[in-house]
């Protein structure tokens, strides 16, 4: 073990960690949007929408993320969309997380008492207002712990995008350890950085949860 190696590599690793964080955040944001749309479509869009949503969720939860990533990375150019690896990666992370998020929302919606939307209907609320004023705010609050967990999972999964050449934390560690022949030290440092980010995210999640409980 030579710690000076880690100190020398630290600026690069931290810079790469920033990429990891914002790629994961963009992925999770995209996943939120997709998950919400899929969830609402499955609940209120009729049978065809429910089935299509079901196939989407089953596929993206059943197929390994690495294969999804390669699928998007190689298939988009074939249908004429030539995207940089970074965009393909964010799309893959977003699509994968959307499948999980839609299930999280479904669970949270089921936890909102049915009588509430019936009462709203009886009071003459239009359908859209029932969603935006009664169901979604409560579902969101219920799903916060699961969503933070999803963010942590996605951050770890983002290490896979190193395969298509995005210079995030894992890829940068590979490059550095290939150059200085110090894989043990570099990967340990990368592991500690991942751990620190996840720890911070978990702490943030607890804070948000506490805040929402007060409100």
């Amino acid at each position, binding site marked *: 073990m030579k710690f000076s190696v880690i100190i020398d590599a630290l600026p690069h690793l931290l810079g790469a960690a920033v990429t990891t964080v914002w790629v994961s955040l963009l992925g999770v944001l995209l996943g939120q949007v997709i998950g919400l749309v899929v969830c609402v479509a499955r609940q209120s869009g009729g049978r065809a929408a429910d089935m299509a949503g079901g196939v989407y969720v089953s596929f993206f939860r*059943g197929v390994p993320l690495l294969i999804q990533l390669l699928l998007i990375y190689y298939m988009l150019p074939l249908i004429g969309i030539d995207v940089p690896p970074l965009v393909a990666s964010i799309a893959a992370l977003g699509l994968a997380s959307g499948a999980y998020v839609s299930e999280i929302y479904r669970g949270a919606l089921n936890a909102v008492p049915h009588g509430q939307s019936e009462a709203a209907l009886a009071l003459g609320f239009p359908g859209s207002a029932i969603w935006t004023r009664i169901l979604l705010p409560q579902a969101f609050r219920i799903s916060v712990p699961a969503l933070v967990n999803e963010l942590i999972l996605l951050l770890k999964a983002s*290490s896979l995008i190193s395969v298509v050449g995005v210079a995030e934390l894992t890829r940068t560690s590979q490059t550095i350890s290939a150059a200085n022949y110090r894989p*043990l030290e570099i990967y340990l440092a990368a592991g500690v950085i991942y*751990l620190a980010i996840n720890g911070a995210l978990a702490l943030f999640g607890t804070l948000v949860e506490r805040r929402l409980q007060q409100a």
Partner: protein
Amino acid sequence: MLDFTLLVQYGPALLRGFGVTILCWGAGCLIGMVLGFVLMLLRQIPVKPLRWVIRAYIEVIRGTPFLIQLFLLYSGGPSIGLRLEATAAGILGLGIYGSAYFAEIFRAGYQAVPKGQVEAALSLGMSYGSILRRVIVPAMLVSTIPAIVNMMAILTKETVVLSIITVPELMYEMQTMAAETFATFETIVGMALFYWLLVEVVSRLGRRLEARVTRFLTHASPQGSSTQTATARA
């Protein structure tokens, strides 16, 4: 469209790859469960430093990407004299990764066993070993089967990551085929469909196992029916 002569030509390699996938998965699950169970037991010992160490192990494994753990084991291992072949490193890595999750699953199962059952067994004069074997473990296995099955399905998906450290499993063989024949598109679509099916089969089998174990309990002796309550509470 997919060129079927390719499948004939690469069939043996793909089958071999699938064999390695199943081997890694099976051995990895086994190591993970055994290690996870031991960790869970060690955690019950009321020695604080030991608990901290196990807790730290679990948090570290669950807080870092599987790929980083694999690189650390496979590329970093030789620096401390741990020289493993790719497949061995893959199996060990999968086992270590799984062990942290299994330890948490078993812990939840252990806590869900009603205290009264353990106290009753103690007052009947049973030793801790037989309480564990005859009271705790049976109840625990039943209440944790859904979680175990879920984890095993997750590990099925994680086996593809082993291809990155050059374990010659299915994903690796398929990528070789894609690189040699330029049939990238077909290969990836084929892989996606295949793994979708595989994960689905694993979950279905798991659900059947679950149904079977629970059915056995509803027809079983009084011990069985009290385990049922444990399941309901868990």
